[in-house]
């Protein structure tokens, strides 16, 4: 049991002295805030892009918007998110001191490009009769989308949005590139101060793993509920 006591001593030195665990706690908060902030932005952008793409199909007036969306999708999907983060922090938002907001926006804009396709396919999966019924009642295209199509589309794609959330959670671990002390960066800082090469990183890995397993379980429960309500 000698090694065990020694390990406990190391843990104490690494995390408890100077309340270094607080860095992990605040890093954890940052990671969560960035993940959910980015998810929110991603879903909003994704929804707007998806609606434009659906409406532009067969409507020449929306051609320009459609082209803009395509450029956005191509650029975002064609470059690594770390590079996007660096561009955002060092080129676009040069005056930003705290990278958190920059990270939220960047991950959100990035996520939007992937969510857009998911939402678009969710919209396409809704029976065309739903659109016709809405239009026949006198709802405009946009209102039909809002009241009738989107609620059904979101129900279809909720699992995919959940997966996007999990992907984002892990992706945000590169936020340290732009001076954000997220949970990964926090571990790295503790590692550098204490020269403990193992425990900070392993702890963070464990935290990610538990979060992802927990979220996956939650999603599965949610999905089963949805299925049931569909009868």
């Amino acid at each position: 049991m000698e090694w065990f006591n020694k390990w406990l001593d190391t843990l104490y030195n690494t995390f408890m002295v100077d309340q270094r665990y607080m860095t992990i706690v605040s890093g954890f908060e940052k990671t969560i805030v960035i993940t959910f902030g980015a998810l929110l932005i991603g879903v909003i952008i994704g929804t707007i892009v998806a609606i434009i793409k659906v409406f532009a199909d067969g409507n020449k007036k929306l051609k320009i918007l459609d082209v803009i969306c395509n450029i956005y999708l191509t650029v975002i999907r064609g470059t690594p998110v770390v590079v996007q983060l660096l561009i955002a922090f060092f080129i676009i938002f040069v005056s930003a001191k705290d990278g958190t907001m920059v990270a939220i926006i960047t991950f959100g804009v990035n996520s939007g490009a992937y969510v857009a396709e998911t939402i678009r396919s969710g919209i396409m999966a809704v029976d065309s009769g739903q659109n016709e019924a809405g239009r026949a009642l006198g709802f405009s295209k946009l209102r039909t989308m809002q009241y009738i199509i989107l609620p059904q589309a979101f129900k279809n794609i909720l699992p995919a949005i959940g997966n996007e959330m999990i992907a984002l959670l892990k992706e945000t671990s590169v936020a340290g590139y732009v001076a954000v002390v997220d949970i990964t960066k926090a571990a790295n800082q503790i590692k550098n101060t204490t020269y403990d090469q193992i425990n900070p990183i392993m702890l963070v890995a464990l935290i990610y793993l538990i979060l992802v397993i927990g979220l996956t379980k939650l999603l599965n429960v949610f999905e089963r509920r949805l299925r049931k309500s569909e009868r």
Partner: protein
Amino acid sequence: MNDNVIIKTEDLCKHYRGGVIRALDGVSAEIKKGEVVVVIGPSGSGKSTFLRSLNLLEIPTSGKILFEDVDITNPKLDVNVYRRKMGMVFQHFNLFPHMTILRNMTIAPMKLLKKTKEEAEAKALELLKLVGLEDRAESYPSQLSGGQKQRVAIVRALCMEPEVMLFDEPTSALDPEMVGEVLDVMKNLAESGMTMLVVTHEMGFAREVASRVIFMDEGQIIEEGTPADIFENPQNSRTQSFLSKVL
């Protein structure tokens, strides 16, 4: 012009693939207030296309649609305003599955006619009662039988207080034992004076309820007249051969 006419079409055409397919090929028709016009014809003859053109779910290739003397094919008009005056009932019901029956019926009057929730719900419940479904107000569409769904679809359209009701094969997707309950609702509606345009294969309904029957084939109106004219004494050979198959 006769002010009893609600809808009048002039030389209405709907072509696909640059005229290769002529779903509608010059349809001129009139529907007067209080009339029940039944449209019959073989599959692919353009009955649905005709009906769906009237509320511009299909945009005609050419021709005019006058709704109370206003040409609604004019792209400058807000078609949504005119669609509100035309209720439509679909073969596959198209109820909104994520809303309760009551919400299905109140959302359009509340959002489009700016009715209060109380007004809209009172009207909806009154109509549900008429079709014997007042106890299903809080149900979801998936909990209803086909016949019940179609009855709800009819009263959902009525909640907008339309001036004319369009039915596209309202009983074709139903199990045979449910056809009667839907036809009964339509019959009552006809008796209440509603102007109706009905595409159907239910010849019994046409005979009994229609004030006029239109026979369509290949995108054109071949023959029209009273049910007695059409069913007992069809003039055109195509009408005769169609009726000999379905009667």
